[in-house]
Protein backbone atom coordinates (compact mmCIF):
# COMPACT_ATOMS: atom_id res chain seq x y z
CA UNK A 1 0.00 0.00 0.00
CA UNK A 2 1.45 3.31 -1.03
CA UNK A 3 -1.07 5.93 -0.01
CA UNK A 4 -3.72 5.30 2.62
CA UNK A 5 -6.08 8.16 3.38
CA UNK A 6 -8.56 7.79 6.21
CA UNK A 7 -11.31 10.28 6.96
CA UNK A 8 -9.19 13.25 5.89
CA UNK A 9 -10.80 16.67 6.36
CA UNK A 10 -9.64 20.22 5.92
CA UNK A 11 -11.65 23.17 7.12
CA UNK A 12 -10.85 26.72 6.01
CA UNK A 13 -12.81 29.39 7.86
CA UNK A 14 -15.73 27.07 8.53
CA UNK A 15 -15.79 25.91 4.92
CA UNK A 16 -15.09 22.22 4.40
CA UNK A 17 -12.64 22.10 1.52
CA UNK A 18 -12.07 18.39 2.02
CA UNK A 19 -14.75 16.44 3.81
CA UNK A 20 -13.78 13.13 5.40
CA UNK A 21 -12.37 11.44 2.33
CA UNK A 22 -11.04 7.89 2.45
CA UNK A 23 -9.17 6.05 -0.29
CA UNK A 24 -6.12 3.91 -0.87
CA UNK A 25 -3.73 3.90 -3.77
CA UNK A 26 -1.67 0.78 -4.32
CA UNK A 27 1.91 0.53 -5.43
CA UNK A 28 2.35 0.92 -9.18
CA UNK A 29 -1.02 2.47 -9.92
CA UNK A 30 -1.57 5.61 -11.96
CA UNK A 31 -4.57 7.29 -10.43
CA UNK A 32 -6.41 10.26 -11.90
CA UNK A 33 -7.79 12.65 -9.34
CA UNK A 34 -10.70 14.43 -10.97
CA UNK A 35 -13.05 17.16 -9.97
CA UNK A 36 -14.32 20.60 -10.89
CA UNK A 37 -12.33 23.67 -9.84
CA UNK A 38 -12.50 24.15 -6.10
CA UNK A 39 -13.51 20.57 -5.39
CA UNK A 40 -10.58 20.03 -3.02
CA UNK A 41 -8.09 18.29 -5.31
CA UNK A 42 -5.18 20.62 -4.64
CA UNK A 43 -5.97 20.82 -0.95
CA UNK A 44 -5.85 17.03 -0.67
CA UNK A 45 -2.53 16.93 -2.48
CA UNK A 46 -1.13 19.69 -0.29
CA UNK A 47 -2.04 17.69 2.78
CA UNK A 48 -0.49 14.51 1.40
CA UNK A 49 2.78 16.32 0.69
CA UNK A 50 2.87 17.93 4.10
CA UNK A 51 2.41 21.51 2.94
CA UNK A 52 -0.84 21.89 4.88
CA UNK A 53 -1.87 19.99 7.98
CA UNK A 54 -5.20 18.18 7.95
CA UNK A 55 -7.94 19.40 10.27
CA UNK A 56 -8.79 15.81 11.11
CA UNK A 57 -8.17 12.31 9.83
CA UNK A 58 -4.84 10.98 8.73
CA UNK A 59 -2.86 9.87 5.73
CA UNK A 60 -0.15 7.26 5.60
CA UNK A 61 2.45 7.42 2.86
CA UNK A 62 4.59 4.31 2.45
CA UNK A 63 3.91 3.48 6.09
CA UNK A 64 4.79 6.96 7.39
CA UNK A 65 2.21 9.13 9.06
CA UNK A 66 1.80 12.56 7.42
CA UNK A 67 1.06 14.14 10.79
CA UNK A 68 4.10 12.75 12.58
CA UNK A 69 6.90 11.67 10.23
CA UNK A 70 6.91 14.60 7.84
CA UNK A 71 10.54 14.37 6.79
CA UNK A 72 10.19 10.72 5.80
CA UNK A 73 6.98 11.49 3.93
CA UNK A 74 8.61 14.37 2.08
CA UNK A 75 11.52 12.19 1.03
CA UNK A 76 9.18 9.47 -0.25
CA UNK A 77 7.16 11.85 -2.41
CA UNK A 78 7.97 13.73 -5.56
CA UNK A 79 5.61 16.68 -5.84
CA UNK A 80 4.76 18.97 -8.72
CA UNK A 81 2.60 21.77 -7.29
CA UNK A 82 -0.18 23.44 -9.23
CA UNK A 83 1.07 26.06 -11.76
CA UNK A 84 4.54 24.48 -11.56
CA UNK A 85 6.39 27.15 -9.57
CA UNK A 86 10.07 27.54 -10.52
CA UNK A 87 12.95 29.89 -9.79
CA UNK A 88 13.06 31.55 -13.17
CA UNK A 89 16.42 33.23 -12.60
CA UNK A 90 18.19 29.89 -12.09
CA UNK A 91 19.76 27.73 -14.78
CA UNK A 92 18.12 24.35 -15.38
CA UNK A 93 21.11 22.42 -14.11
CA UNK A 94 21.69 24.80 -11.21
CA UNK A 95 18.10 24.32 -10.07
CA UNK A 96 18.28 20.55 -10.29
CA UNK A 97 21.57 20.62 -8.37
CA UNK A 98 19.93 22.69 -5.65
CA UNK A 99 17.01 20.26 -5.34
CA UNK A 100 19.40 17.30 -5.41
CA UNK A 101 21.56 18.74 -2.63
CA UNK A 102 18.49 19.40 -0.49
CA UNK A 103 17.61 15.72 -0.90
CA UNK A 104 21.25 14.75 -0.28
CA UNK A 105 21.44 12.64 -3.44
CA UNK A 106 24.65 10.74 -4.00
CA UNK A 107 26.22 10.78 -7.47
CA UNK A 108 24.18 13.87 -8.21
CA UNK A 109 25.74 14.84 -11.54
CA UNK A 110 24.98 11.44 -13.00
CA UNK A 111 21.45 11.45 -11.66
CA UNK A 112 20.80 14.91 -13.14
CA UNK A 113 22.05 13.70 -16.53
CA UNK A 114 19.63 10.79 -16.34
CA UNK A 115 16.69 13.03 -15.48
CA UNK A 116 17.55 15.53 -18.21
CA UNK A 117 17.57 12.71 -20.70
CA UNK A 118 14.38 11.11 -19.40
CA UNK A 119 12.41 14.34 -19.55
CA UNK A 120 13.88 15.36 -22.91
CA UNK A 121 15.62 18.49 -21.65
CA UNK A 122 19.00 17.75 -23.26
CA UNK A 123 18.82 20.59 -25.79
CA UNK A 124 17.57 23.19 -23.31
CA UNK A 125 19.55 22.29 -20.20
CA UNK A 126 22.07 25.14 -20.58
CA UNK A 127 19.40 27.85 -20.48
CA UNK A 128 17.90 29.81 -17.65
CA UNK A 129 14.49 28.50 -16.59
CA UNK A 130 12.95 31.87 -17.40
CA UNK A 131 13.97 31.48 -21.05
CA UNK A 132 12.19 28.15 -21.48
CA UNK A 133 8.80 27.66 -23.07
CA UNK A 134 5.96 26.39 -20.96
CA UNK A 135 6.37 22.80 -22.11
CA UNK A 136 10.02 22.74 -21.17
CA UNK A 137 9.33 24.37 -17.82
CA UNK A 138 6.87 21.59 -17.16
CA UNK A 139 9.64 19.10 -17.88
CA UNK A 140 11.91 20.89 -15.43
CA UNK A 141 9.12 20.62 -12.85
CA UNK A 142 8.78 16.91 -13.51
CA UNK A 143 12.54 16.40 -13.41
CA UNK A 144 12.63 18.21 -10.07
CA UNK A 145 9.85 15.99 -8.71
CA UNK A 146 11.49 12.75 -9.81
CA UNK A 147 15.11 13.63 -9.09
CA UNK A 148 15.41 11.88 -5.74
CA UNK A 149 13.79 8.74 -7.16
CA UNK A 150 10.68 8.88 -4.96
CA UNK A 151 8.38 5.88 -4.97
CA UNK A 152 5.31 8.13 -5.11
CA UNK A 153 4.67 11.02 -7.47
CA UNK A 154 1.96 13.57 -6.78
CA UNK A 155 1.36 15.81 -9.78
CA UNK A 156 -1.12 18.67 -9.54
CA UNK A 157 -2.39 19.42 -13.03
CA UNK A 158 0.85 18.51 -14.78
CA UNK A 159 -0.38 19.28 -18.30
CA UNK A 160 -2.21 22.61 -18.06
CA UNK A 161 -1.24 25.12 -20.70
CA UNK A 162 0.63 22.73 -22.96
CA UNK A 163 0.09 22.58 -26.72
CA UNK A 164 -1.22 19.30 -28.18
CA UNK A 165 2.24 18.01 -29.12
CA UNK A 166 3.69 18.75 -25.72
CA UNK A 167 0.61 17.21 -24.15
CA UNK A 168 1.27 13.90 -25.84
CA UNK A 169 4.94 13.98 -24.93
CA UNK A 170 4.42 14.84 -21.28
CA UNK A 171 1.74 12.17 -20.99
CA UNK A 172 4.17 9.66 -22.43
CA UNK A 173 6.77 10.73 -19.87
CA UNK A 174 4.28 10.27 -17.04
CA UNK A 175 3.17 6.93 -18.40
CA UNK A 176 6.75 5.71 -18.58
CA UNK A 177 7.40 6.74 -15.00
CA UNK A 178 4.17 5.09 -13.92
CA UNK A 179 5.50 1.65 -14.80
CA UNK A 180 7.67 1.63 -11.72
CA UNK A 181 6.12 4.25 -9.46
CA UNK A 182 2.84 5.13 -7.88
CA UNK A 183 1.44 8.22 -9.56
CA UNK A 184 -1.43 10.39 -8.42
CA UNK A 185 -2.29 13.18 -10.80
CA UNK A 186 -5.05 15.72 -10.82
CA UNK A 187 -6.58 17.10 -13.97
CA UNK A 188 -9.83 18.18 -15.46
CA UNK A 189 -9.05 16.97 -18.94
CA UNK A 190 -11.00 13.77 -19.50
CA UNK A 191 -9.01 12.46 -22.45
CA UNK A 192 -5.95 12.65 -20.28
CA UNK A 193 -7.44 10.36 -17.69
CA UNK A 194 -8.48 7.92 -20.39
CA UNK A 195 -5.02 8.06 -21.90
CA UNK A 196 -2.91 7.49 -18.81
CA UNK A 197 -4.84 6.46 -15.72
CA UNK A 198 -5.65 2.96 -14.53
CA UNK A 199 -8.01 4.27 -11.94
CA UNK A 200 -10.10 7.38 -11.33
CA UNK A 201 -11.11 9.10 -8.14
CA UNK A 202 -13.71 11.80 -8.69
CA UNK A 203 -14.13 14.37 -5.97
CA UNK A 204 -16.83 17.01 -5.71
CA UNK A 205 -17.37 19.61 -2.97
CA UNK A 206 -14.78 17.87 -0.83
CA UNK A 207 -16.36 14.43 -1.06
CA UNK A 208 -15.42 11.41 -3.13
CA UNK A 209 -18.23 10.64 -5.58
CA UNK A 210 -16.58 7.86 -7.57
CA UNK A 211 -13.54 5.65 -7.13
CA UNK A 212 -12.96 2.78 -9.54
CA UNK A 213 -10.98 1.66 -12.57
CA UNK A 214 -11.35 3.82 -15.65
CA UNK A 215 -13.21 1.07 -17.51
CA UNK A 216 -15.75 0.37 -14.76
CA UNK A 217 -16.50 4.04 -14.28
CA UNK A 218 -17.04 4.48 -17.98
CA UNK A 219 -19.46 1.56 -18.15
CA UNK A 220 -21.28 1.79 -14.87
CA UNK A 221 -21.83 5.39 -14.12
CA UNK A 222 -24.10 5.81 -17.12
CA UNK A 223 -27.31 4.00 -16.38
CA UNK A 224 -28.54 4.00 -19.95
CA UNK A 225 -27.28 2.26 -23.08
CA UNK A 226 -27.39 4.02 -26.40
CA UNK A 227 -27.42 2.33 -29.82
CA UNK A 228 -27.18 4.04 -33.16
CA UNK A 229 -28.94 2.36 -36.04
CA UNK A 230 -28.83 3.24 -39.72
CA UNK A 231 -31.43 1.70 -42.02
CA UNK A 232 -31.94 1.96 -45.81
CA UNK A 233 -35.23 3.85 -45.47
CA UNK A 234 -36.39 6.90 -43.65
CA UNK A 235 -39.67 5.23 -42.70
CA UNK A 236 -38.37 2.84 -40.05
CA UNK A 237 -39.27 4.82 -36.97
CA UNK A 238 -42.62 3.13 -36.45
CA UNK A 239 -40.97 -0.27 -36.62
CA UNK A 240 -38.30 0.66 -34.13
CA UNK A 241 -40.92 2.03 -31.81
CA UNK A 242 -42.22 -1.49 -31.32
CA UNK A 243 -39.21 -2.36 -29.11
CA UNK A 244 -40.48 -2.23 -25.53
CA UNK A 245 -39.16 0.26 -22.93
CA UNK A 246 -36.96 2.43 -25.14
CA UNK A 247 -37.04 5.96 -26.37
CA UNK A 248 -36.13 6.78 -29.94
CA UNK A 249 -34.56 9.90 -31.33
CA UNK A 250 -33.98 10.65 -34.96
CA UNK A 251 -30.41 11.88 -35.53
CA UNK A 252 -30.20 11.95 -39.34
CA UNK A 253 -32.31 11.20 -42.41
CA UNK A 254 -32.32 7.43 -41.87
CA UNK A 255 -30.44 7.18 -38.59
CA UNK A 256 -31.91 6.71 -35.13
CA UNK A 257 -30.67 6.73 -31.62
CA UNK A 258 -32.23 4.07 -29.41
CA UNK A 259 -31.90 4.78 -25.72
CA UNK A 260 -32.59 2.00 -23.29
CA UNK A 261 -32.87 2.64 -19.56
CA UNK A 262 -31.71 -0.84 -18.53
CA UNK A 263 -28.64 -2.92 -19.16
CA UNK A 264 -30.06 -5.25 -21.84
CA UNK A 265 -28.07 -5.62 -25.03
CA UNK A 266 -30.62 -4.56 -27.64
CA UNK A 267 -28.54 -5.31 -30.70
CA UNK A 268 -29.92 -8.80 -31.48
CA UNK A 269 -33.47 -7.56 -30.98
CA UNK A 270 -32.96 -4.60 -33.29
CA UNK A 271 -31.27 -6.75 -35.91
CA UNK A 272 -34.06 -9.35 -35.92
CA UNK A 273 -36.74 -6.70 -35.98
CA UNK A 274 -35.29 -5.01 -39.02
CA UNK A 275 -34.74 -8.25 -40.90
CA UNK A 276 -38.27 -9.38 -40.08
CA UNK A 277 -39.66 -6.20 -41.67
CA UNK A 278 -37.67 -6.72 -44.86
CA UNK A 279 -35.45 -3.72 -44.33
CA UNK A 280 -31.66 -3.56 -44.62
CA UNK A 281 -29.50 -2.66 -41.70
CA UNK A 282 -26.70 -0.39 -42.90
CA UNK A 283 -24.92 0.10 -39.60
CA UNK A 284 -25.39 -0.41 -35.93
CA UNK A 285 -23.16 0.59 -33.04
CA UNK A 286 -23.30 1.14 -29.34
CA UNK A 287 -22.30 4.54 -28.09
CA UNK A 288 -19.70 4.24 -25.38
CA UNK A 289 -20.23 6.22 -22.20
CA UNK A 290 -18.17 9.39 -22.39
CA UNK A 291 -16.19 10.41 -19.34
CA UNK A 292 -17.31 13.99 -19.79
CA UNK A 293 -20.91 12.92 -19.31
CA UNK A 294 -20.06 10.88 -16.26
CA UNK A 295 -18.12 13.77 -14.84
CA UNK A 296 -21.10 16.06 -15.42
CA UNK A 297 -23.62 13.73 -13.81
CA UNK A 298 -21.45 13.08 -10.78
CA UNK A 299 -20.38 16.62 -10.06
CA UNK A 300 -23.53 18.63 -10.58
Amino acid at each position, binding site marked *: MSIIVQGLSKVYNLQRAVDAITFTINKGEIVGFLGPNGAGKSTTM*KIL*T*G*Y*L*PATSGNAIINGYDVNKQL*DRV*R*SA*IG*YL*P*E*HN*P*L*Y*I*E*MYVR*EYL*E*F*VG*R*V*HKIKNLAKRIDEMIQLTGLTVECKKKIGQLSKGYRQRVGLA*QAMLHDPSILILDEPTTGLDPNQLVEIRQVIKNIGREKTVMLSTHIMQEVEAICDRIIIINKGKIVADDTTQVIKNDAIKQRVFIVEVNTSQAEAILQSIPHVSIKKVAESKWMIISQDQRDLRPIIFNLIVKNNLTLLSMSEQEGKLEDIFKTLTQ
Partner: protein
Amino acid sequence: MIPLFKKEVNIFFSSLIGYIAIGVFLLSTWLLCWFLPGENNIFEYGFATLDSFFYWAPIIFFFLVPAITMRSFSEEYRTGTIEILFTKPLSDWHIIISKYLAAWFLLLVALIPTLVYFYTIYHLAAPEGNIDIGATWGSYIGLWFMGGVFVAIGLFASSISNNQIVSFILGFFLCVFFYLAFESLANLKIFYAKLDAIIMQLGIAYHYQSISRGVIDSRDIVYFISIMAIFLLLTHLVLNKRKW
Protein backbone atom coordinates in the same frame (compact mmCIF):
# COMPACT_ATOMS: atom_id res chain seq x y z
CA MET B 1 20.90 24.25 4.90
CA ILE B 2 24.09 24.87 2.92
CA PRO B 3 22.43 24.29 -0.49
CA LEU B 4 19.65 26.68 0.49
CA PHE B 5 22.14 29.33 1.63
CA LYS B 6 24.02 28.95 -1.64
CA LYS B 7 20.82 29.22 -3.64
CA GLU B 8 19.86 32.45 -1.83
CA VAL B 9 23.27 34.02 -2.41
CA ASN B 10 23.24 32.94 -6.06
CA ILE B 11 19.83 34.48 -6.56
CA PHE B 12 21.07 37.81 -5.15
CA PHE B 13 23.77 37.89 -7.77
CA SER B 14 21.89 36.41 -10.70
CA SER B 15 18.98 38.81 -10.29
CA LEU B 16 21.28 41.86 -10.03
CA ILE B 17 19.89 42.76 -6.59
CA GLY B 18 23.22 41.88 -5.03
CA TYR B 19 25.27 44.07 -7.36
CA ILE B 20 22.86 46.98 -7.16
CA ALA B 21 22.64 46.87 -3.36
CA ILE B 22 26.40 46.71 -2.92
CA GLY B 23 27.00 49.30 -5.64
CA VAL B 24 24.51 51.78 -4.24
CA PHE B 25 25.85 51.35 -0.72
CA LEU B 26 29.44 51.95 -1.76
CA LEU B 27 28.59 54.82 -4.07
CA SER B 28 26.44 56.65 -1.54
CA THR B 29 28.90 56.23 1.35
CA TRP B 30 31.72 57.40 -0.91
CA LEU B 31 29.71 60.43 -2.04
CA LEU B 32 28.65 61.37 1.47
CA CYS B 33 32.01 60.88 3.15
CA TRP B 34 34.54 61.86 0.54
CA PHE B 35 32.99 63.83 -2.25
CA LEU B 36 30.05 66.03 -1.28
CA PRO B 37 31.21 69.15 0.52
CA GLY B 38 29.95 69.87 4.02
CA GLU B 39 30.67 68.92 7.58
CA ASN B 40 30.50 65.22 6.76
CA ASN B 41 33.27 65.47 4.23
CA ILE B 42 36.28 63.78 5.76
CA PHE B 43 38.77 66.12 4.07
CA GLU B 44 37.01 69.24 5.31
CA TYR B 45 36.46 67.77 8.76
CA GLY B 46 40.17 67.55 9.21
CA PHE B 47 40.29 64.76 11.79
CA ALA B 48 41.44 61.23 11.06
CA THR B 49 38.21 59.41 11.89
CA LEU B 50 35.59 57.44 10.00
CA ASP B 51 32.83 58.96 12.14
CA SER B 52 30.90 60.38 9.21
CA PHE B 53 30.87 56.95 7.54
CA PHE B 54 29.55 55.34 10.70
CA TYR B 55 26.99 58.13 11.03
CA TRP B 56 25.67 57.66 7.50
CA ALA B 57 25.88 53.87 7.24
CA PRO B 58 22.84 53.15 9.48
CA ILE B 59 20.78 55.65 7.52
CA ILE B 60 21.71 53.96 4.25
CA PHE B 61 20.96 50.61 5.88
CA PHE B 62 17.36 51.77 6.49
CA PHE B 63 16.86 51.57 2.72
CA LEU B 64 19.42 49.01 1.78
CA VAL B 65 18.53 46.16 4.12
CA PRO B 66 14.77 46.08 3.45
CA ALA B 67 15.64 46.25 -0.26
CA ILE B 68 17.82 43.16 0.10
CA THR B 69 15.33 41.20 2.20
CA MET B 70 12.05 42.30 0.66
CA ARG B 71 11.99 39.48 -1.88
CA SER B 72 13.12 36.68 0.47
CA PHE B 73 9.67 35.39 1.26
CA SER B 74 7.42 37.74 -0.74
CA GLU B 75 8.75 36.52 -4.06
CA GLU B 76 8.51 32.87 -3.01
CA TYR B 77 4.88 33.40 -1.99
CA ARG B 78 4.08 35.23 -5.21
CA THR B 79 5.59 32.66 -7.56
CA GLY B 80 4.51 29.72 -5.40
CA THR B 81 8.05 28.35 -5.03
CA ILE B 82 7.50 28.45 -1.28
CA GLU B 83 5.46 25.28 -1.79
CA ILE B 84 8.52 23.60 -3.31
CA LEU B 85 10.61 24.55 -0.28
CA PHE B 86 7.99 23.52 2.25
CA THR B 87 7.51 20.11 0.68
CA LYS B 88 11.21 19.26 0.66
CA PRO B 89 12.79 17.58 3.67
CA LEU B 90 13.66 20.94 5.23
CA SER B 91 12.31 22.40 8.44
CA ASP B 92 10.93 25.93 8.63
CA TRP B 93 13.96 26.91 10.70
CA HIS B 94 16.31 25.66 7.99
CA ILE B 95 14.58 27.92 5.52
CA ILE B 96 14.54 30.98 7.80
CA ILE B 97 18.15 30.66 8.96
CA SER B 98 19.47 30.08 5.43
CA LYS B 99 17.70 33.13 4.10
CA TYR B 100 18.81 35.14 7.10
CA LEU B 101 22.47 34.18 6.80
CA ALA B 102 22.46 34.77 3.05
CA ALA B 103 21.18 38.34 3.43
CA TRP B 104 23.56 39.03 6.30
CA PHE B 105 26.41 37.66 4.21
CA LEU B 106 25.48 40.04 1.39
CA LEU B 107 25.76 42.90 3.86
CA LEU B 108 29.23 41.70 4.84
CA VAL B 109 30.22 41.70 1.18
CA ALA B 110 28.99 45.30 0.98
CA LEU B 111 30.96 46.30 4.07
CA ILE B 112 34.31 44.73 3.18
CA PRO B 113 35.20 47.22 0.38
CA THR B 114 34.71 50.09 2.83
CA LEU B 115 37.87 48.93 4.58
CA VAL B 116 39.53 50.94 1.82
CA TYR B 117 38.22 54.08 3.60
CA PHE B 118 39.87 52.87 6.79
CA TYR B 119 43.11 52.17 4.96
CA THR B 120 43.03 55.61 3.31
CA ILE B 121 42.49 57.48 6.55
CA TYR B 122 45.11 55.39 8.29
CA HIS B 123 47.64 56.66 5.79
CA LEU B 124 46.28 60.20 5.57
CA ALA B 125 46.54 60.70 9.33
CA ALA B 126 49.39 62.79 10.65
CA PRO B 127 51.48 61.12 11.87
CA GLU B 128 50.59 58.11 9.76
CA GLY B 129 48.45 55.56 11.65
CA ASN B 130 47.17 58.12 14.13
CA ILE B 131 43.61 56.83 14.15
CA ASP B 132 41.56 55.25 16.91
CA ILE B 133 41.80 51.69 15.68
CA GLY B 134 39.78 50.25 18.57
CA ALA B 135 36.87 52.58 17.98
CA THR B 136 36.93 51.87 14.26
CA TRP B 137 36.80 48.12 14.70
CA GLY B 138 34.12 48.54 17.37
CA SER B 139 32.08 50.60 14.95
CA TYR B 140 32.48 47.99 12.26
CA ILE B 141 31.32 45.27 14.62
CA GLY B 142 28.42 47.46 15.76
CA LEU B 143 27.45 48.16 12.18
CA TRP B 144 27.63 44.50 11.29
CA PHE B 145 25.44 43.48 14.23
CA MET B 146 23.04 46.30 13.58
CA GLY B 147 22.84 45.09 9.98
CA GLY B 148 22.00 41.66 11.37
CA VAL B 149 19.13 43.10 13.38
CA PHE B 150 17.87 44.98 10.32
CA VAL B 151 18.05 41.78 8.26
CA ALA B 152 15.95 39.96 10.87
CA ILE B 153 13.43 42.81 10.77
CA GLY B 154 13.41 42.84 6.98
CA LEU B 155 12.94 39.09 6.80
CA PHE B 156 9.99 39.32 9.15
CA ALA B 157 8.47 42.10 7.03
CA SER B 158 8.97 39.95 3.94
CA SER B 159 7.27 36.96 5.52
CA ILE B 160 4.10 38.97 6.07
CA SER B 161 3.18 39.90 2.52
CA ASN B 162 3.43 38.50 -0.98
CA ASN B 163 3.98 42.03 -2.23
CA GLN B 164 7.59 43.19 -2.23
CA ILE B 165 6.66 46.87 -1.97
CA VAL B 166 4.63 46.23 1.19
CA SER B 167 7.53 44.22 2.62
CA PHE B 168 9.96 47.01 1.82
CA ILE B 169 7.88 49.75 3.38
CA LEU B 170 7.13 47.73 6.50
CA GLY B 171 10.78 46.72 6.85
CA PHE B 172 11.93 50.30 6.39
CA PHE B 173 9.46 51.58 8.98
CA LEU B 174 10.42 48.96 11.56
CA CYS B 175 14.14 49.58 11.06
CA VAL B 176 13.75 53.33 11.51
CA PHE B 177 11.47 52.79 14.47
CA PHE B 178 13.86 50.49 16.31
CA TYR B 179 16.81 52.71 15.53
CA LEU B 180 15.43 56.13 16.35
CA ALA B 181 12.07 56.00 18.08
CA PHE B 182 13.26 54.95 21.52
CA GLU B 183 15.87 57.69 21.67
CA SER B 184 13.32 60.35 20.76
CA LEU B 185 10.86 58.86 23.19
CA ALA B 186 13.38 58.97 26.01
CA ASN B 187 13.87 62.69 25.40
CA LEU B 188 10.26 63.40 26.23
CA LYS B 189 9.84 65.23 29.50
CA ILE B 190 7.32 62.73 30.82
CA PHE B 191 10.02 60.12 31.24
CA TYR B 192 12.42 61.10 33.98
CA ALA B 193 14.49 59.51 36.69
CA LYS B 194 15.73 56.14 35.47
CA LEU B 195 12.89 55.56 33.05
CA ASP B 196 14.39 57.57 30.20
CA ALA B 197 17.63 55.57 30.36
CA ILE B 198 15.74 52.29 30.19
CA ILE B 199 13.68 53.42 27.22
CA MET B 200 16.76 54.64 25.45
CA GLN B 201 18.35 51.24 25.90
CA LEU B 202 15.49 49.60 24.06
CA GLY B 203 16.57 51.28 20.81
CA ILE B 204 19.30 50.15 18.46
CA ALA B 205 21.01 53.54 18.31
CA TYR B 206 22.05 53.45 21.97
CA HIS B 207 23.82 50.11 21.61
CA TYR B 208 25.35 50.99 18.27
CA GLN B 209 26.87 54.14 19.76
CA SER B 210 28.00 52.23 22.81
CA ILE B 211 29.86 49.63 20.73
CA SER B 212 31.26 52.37 18.49
CA ARG B 213 33.34 53.72 21.37
CA GLY B 214 35.50 50.66 20.94
CA VAL B 215 34.38 48.71 23.99
CA ILE B 216 32.62 45.51 23.14
CA ASP B 217 30.18 45.24 25.98
CA SER B 218 28.43 41.90 26.34
CA ARG B 219 25.18 43.75 27.14
CA ASP B 220 25.18 45.33 23.67
CA ILE B 221 25.88 42.01 21.98
CA VAL B 222 23.14 40.33 24.02
CA TYR B 223 20.77 43.13 23.03
CA PHE B 224 21.48 42.73 19.33
CA ILE B 225 21.16 38.97 19.46
CA SER B 226 17.89 39.17 21.40
CA ILE B 227 16.28 41.51 18.88
CA MET B 228 17.42 39.26 16.02
CA ALA B 229 16.03 36.22 17.81
CA ILE B 230 12.70 37.94 18.47
CA PHE B 231 12.21 38.85 14.82
CA LEU B 232 13.30 35.43 13.60
CA LEU B 233 10.82 33.85 16.02
CA LEU B 234 8.11 36.17 14.72
CA THR B 235 9.01 35.11 11.18
CA HIS B 236 8.69 31.48 12.20
CA LEU B 237 5.32 32.27 13.71
CA VAL B 238 4.15 33.89 10.48
CA LEU B 239 5.34 30.92 8.40
CA ASN B 240 3.49 28.60 10.73
CA LYS B 241 0.28 30.52 10.21
CA ARG B 242 -0.55 28.28 7.25
CA LYS B 243 -0.81 25.40 9.69
CA TRP B 244 -3.51 27.00 11.79
